């Protein structure tokens, strides 16, 4: 279901840690407004791929373009990295939400959101605070604006994490298993926020173990295993009984058994 030209274009990305190749030539496209979920067994390279898109990790080969601009290199062929300043500017265009929230522990919920707005987007403190409060309202946490992360539940922290990323108005949002560190009863409140963003047309690349969420919320599901894309199709095809990819069928079978979906 392509909605527009590719906003994110990943081509033949390869990455090794020492002798272990973690990404073996990954190709992936995400169109503007599209929600693409990535599923697959642990250790398959999903986190690494997201971190490459944000250039939290460099990649050895291939290219990652966002809105027509190469993410980490000013010269891909010669592997010339962008300057740190340039990288910072590029990273501000992609929002990332982390499995372990990674909120700044010394800043309140509102200040966590304001930091990027004041230092990167150069808003005044007042404008930044208004914007932070707006986004805290969107994730249902207006009354927690001045609380420190340590005073919030996991689900609340993760909603602040989402607000912090979205408030920067990124072109694409990257979510890395954002509910897997949460108690089961807190998962819903976080997924609801993600669903509402998706409904508004936010472009997202979502790594998740919530197979039900992947099935219901995404335009396309990408199955990643062993550092490569094993399947890339709309949910209907991924879950089809005659799914040709044996490994994917096995993965879904184990998953369905484990979660009694």
């Amino acid at each position, binding site marked *: 279901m392509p909605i527009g030209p590719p906003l994110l274009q990943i081509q033949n990305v390869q990455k090794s840690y020492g002798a272990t190749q973690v990404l073996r030539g990954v190709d992936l496209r995400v169109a503007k407004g599209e929600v693409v979920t990535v599923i697959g067994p642990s250790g398959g390279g999903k986190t690494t791929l997201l971190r490459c898109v944000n250039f939290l990790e460099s990649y050895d080969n291939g290219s990652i373009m966002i809105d027509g601009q190469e993410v980490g290199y000013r010269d891909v062929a010669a592997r010339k990295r962008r300057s740190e300043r340039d990288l910072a500017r590029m990273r501000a265009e992609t929002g990332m939400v982390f499995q372990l929230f990674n909120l700044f522990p010394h800043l309140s919920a509102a200040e966590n959101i304001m930091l990027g707005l004041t230092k990167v987007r150069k808003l005044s403190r007042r404008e930044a605070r208004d914007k932070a409060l707006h986004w805290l309202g969107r994730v249902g946490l207006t009354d927690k604006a001045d609380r420190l*992360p340590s005073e919030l539940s996991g689900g609340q922290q993760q909603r602040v994490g989402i607000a*912090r990323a979205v408030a920067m108005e990124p072109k694409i949002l990257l979510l890395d298993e954002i509910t897997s560190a949460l108690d089961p009863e807190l998962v819903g409140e976080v997924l609801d926020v993600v669903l509402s963003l998706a409904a508004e047309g936010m472009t997202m690349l979502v790594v998740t173990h919530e197979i039900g969420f992947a099935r219901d919320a995404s335009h396309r599901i990408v199955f990643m295993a062993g550092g490569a894309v094993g399947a890339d199709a709309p949910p209907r095809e991924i879950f089809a009984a005659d799914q040709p990819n044996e490994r994917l069928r096995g993965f879904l079978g184990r998953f369905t058994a484990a979660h009694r979906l």
Partner: protein
Amino acid sequence: MGYHLNFALIWRHFDKLWSGLILSLELAVVSIGIGCVIGLALAVAYVSGNRLVRGLIAAYVEVIRNVPLLLLVYLVFYGLPTVVDIAYSNTTSFVVTLSAYAGAYLVEVFRSGLDAVPRGLIDAGRSIGLTPGQRLLYVRLPTMLRIALPALSNTFVSLFKDTSVASVIAVPELTYGAQWINFNTFRIMEVYLVVTGLYLVTGYAILIGLRLLERRYAIGR
């Protein structure tokens, strides 16, 4: 037991101890202040510097930490003026020495604090587009300070006690005050008991103050 404790003479000279205590605190505060600047600057230089910078800083830390403070005090006060043309008062000489000494210990405190800042926080800073300098200023240093606070408190109390070494070059701090009273009254036990009490109470007060600060700024888990 033929010895009777008699504190009367001590109280008569208590002003010597009091002014000594004040000077001890001043020496500690100034040296810790300068030491913190040295420590912070070198810790930041260490984590962002090349091999040469790291080597030089490590050498400074190792030398200072493996030489007794007493010897450093002698070296700076008696030794240095014989080779280079400088003149300074006992007090200045001691402050220079204790600052350099404090700096070496504080580099280690700050450096291990910076190392202990969770990687995820730095990643979060990168992902919202902070430059390396902004990450240092707004993420790494504030987090590090909170992590380092307990170690910092212990170092501060230690350095306060170390000011007593200044007595060997006749800086009129608390321990020197005690010796002065000894010479003039020979109430040795009484003097040292009172001075011990003063160090104890002051050191403890500093510790409690810092612990309160820790509780206020501790990173909740």
